[in-house]
């Protein structure tokens, strides 16, 4: 008996196994998002203040990230960082066990650095877009540069930045699909396992598509809500 060319029911049977790996995909997304914001903020401030040496290093880092494919960056983290650690072991007599590092750690690092470069550009553009007069007013009432940044400039810059961060975030979610390349067991890896067991690759990739599509749709909604709440003050007169 010939099997079905396309098995709709199989998609529903495969979905739970694939979805069981969703937490990994989400953890890559949110861990990288968190660190990328920190990296992005620090590097943006250093570059805006034109702090010598750091500015050049960060500019180089951003050029590298923007000028090379993410897959190469993942491999650089996966194969490059262990070498660095081994060199440290040799140099300082430490005894770090390279093999015990889970692949997902390299993914966190690669994705945080990758997203961090884009976050840096977003932060920088947003802060630069804030009218100079705002910073001058903050200075003139006696705020420290830190107070001015946190109380006045960042809140206004965020309004500009959030839509761009939204786009970055969607990109990040979709990029997580490359994590399987260093054998991290995310939803893509799970789909491949199911696919090669059943040879129903088309079905499992449709399941994957739906999962990514729903995730991106939900995140878009979340970003819109954040955007709205940030701009809420400006529309109506406060009660």
């Amino acid at each position, binding site marked *: 008996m010939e099997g079905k060319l396309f098995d709709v029911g199989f998609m529903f049977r495969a979905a739970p196994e694939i979805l069981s790996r969703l937490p990994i995909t989400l953890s890559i997304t949110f861990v990288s998002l968190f660190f990328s914001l920190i990296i992005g903020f620090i590097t943006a401030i250093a570059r805006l203040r034109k702090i010598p040496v750091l500015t050049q290093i960060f500019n180089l880092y951003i050029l590298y990230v923007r000028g090379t494919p993410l897959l190469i960056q993942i491999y650089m983290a996966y194969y490059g960082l262990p070498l660095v650690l081994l060199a440290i072991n040799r140099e300082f007599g430490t005894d770090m066990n390279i093999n015990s590092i889970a692949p997902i750690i390299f993914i966190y690092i690669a994705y945080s650095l990758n997203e961090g470069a884009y976050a840096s550009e977003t932060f920088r553009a947003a802060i630069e877009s804030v009218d100079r007069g*705002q910073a001058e007013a903050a200075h003139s*009432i006696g705020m420290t540069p830190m107070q001015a940044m946190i109380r006045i400039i960042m809140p206004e810059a965020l309004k500009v930045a959030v839509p761009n961060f939204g786009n970055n975030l969607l990109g990040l979610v979709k990029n997580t699909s490359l994590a399987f390349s260093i054998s991290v067991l995310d939803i893509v890896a799970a789909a491949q396992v199911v696919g090669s067991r059943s040879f129903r690759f088309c079905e499992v990739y449709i399941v994957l598509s739906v999962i990514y599509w729903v995730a991106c749709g939900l995140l878009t909604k979340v970003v819109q809500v954040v955007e709205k709440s940030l701009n809420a003050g400006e529309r109506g007169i*406060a009660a």
Partner: protein
Amino acid sequence: MIELKNVEKYFGAHHVLRDINLKVEKGEVVAIIGPSGSGKSTLLRCANYLEMPAEGFIALNGRTIDFRHVTKHDILYLTRNTAMVFQQYNLFKNKTALGNVEEGLVVVQKKDRSVARAEALRRLDAVGLTDRVNYYPRQLSGGQQQRVAIARALALNPAVILFDEPTSALDPEMVGEVLEVIRGVTESGITTLIVTHEMNFAREVADRVVFLDDGCIVEEGAPVSIFDNPRNSRTRQFLERVTGGGRSVLSPPAREDATVYERDRQPRAWLGEERSA
């Protein structure tokens, strides 16, 4: 008391302030006049360190700061004892009128929220904006925004208040209301430096007028002597130019009410202003 001594300021190779010496006594009102680009804004901005002079000293209430060796503490001392009212108002866009005035009280002076609120409301009331305290800057007219900015500056109880062309960005019909508020400020006894093109107003409220040209203080003295009897030819030329040969500031206003600014509310062609449609 605030005093600038031997202040030099460059923008690149451009020498913008040349050996500025200016002493303003406590409670004195000094008007700074001069052509566009002569360095008036830069002079004010040096006084609260929005610009960094190359050299010179500033003395404020007994503390002298050498502009060549300025510490973070010096900067905070200057900014916390002076207040600036900008030509473009520069209200914090994401805060209401009340929030704008409260901000410095809470963040800089560390006052309790409730104390700060009461103080801010009092200051907004004093500039006639009780019914606009919850409005955001973009919901206020230029004149209202500038009055909030004045309330914000005064709330911090500065030793010196600096006005940089506070009415130049305003539609002509709003100039009067802002000048009235500034007049009140000058009468309150606070030390005031005001850069202005409102010559009638300068003549009326200032104890002393300083004429700045090309980065130099060319002439200074009582309003009558500067306006009615300028000794320097550059001062004379400037005054002739701004009064346009028509009715001039050389004839003092007859009455001291707001109507004397009627003339100033007209478009000032020499400022590039056009009659609003």
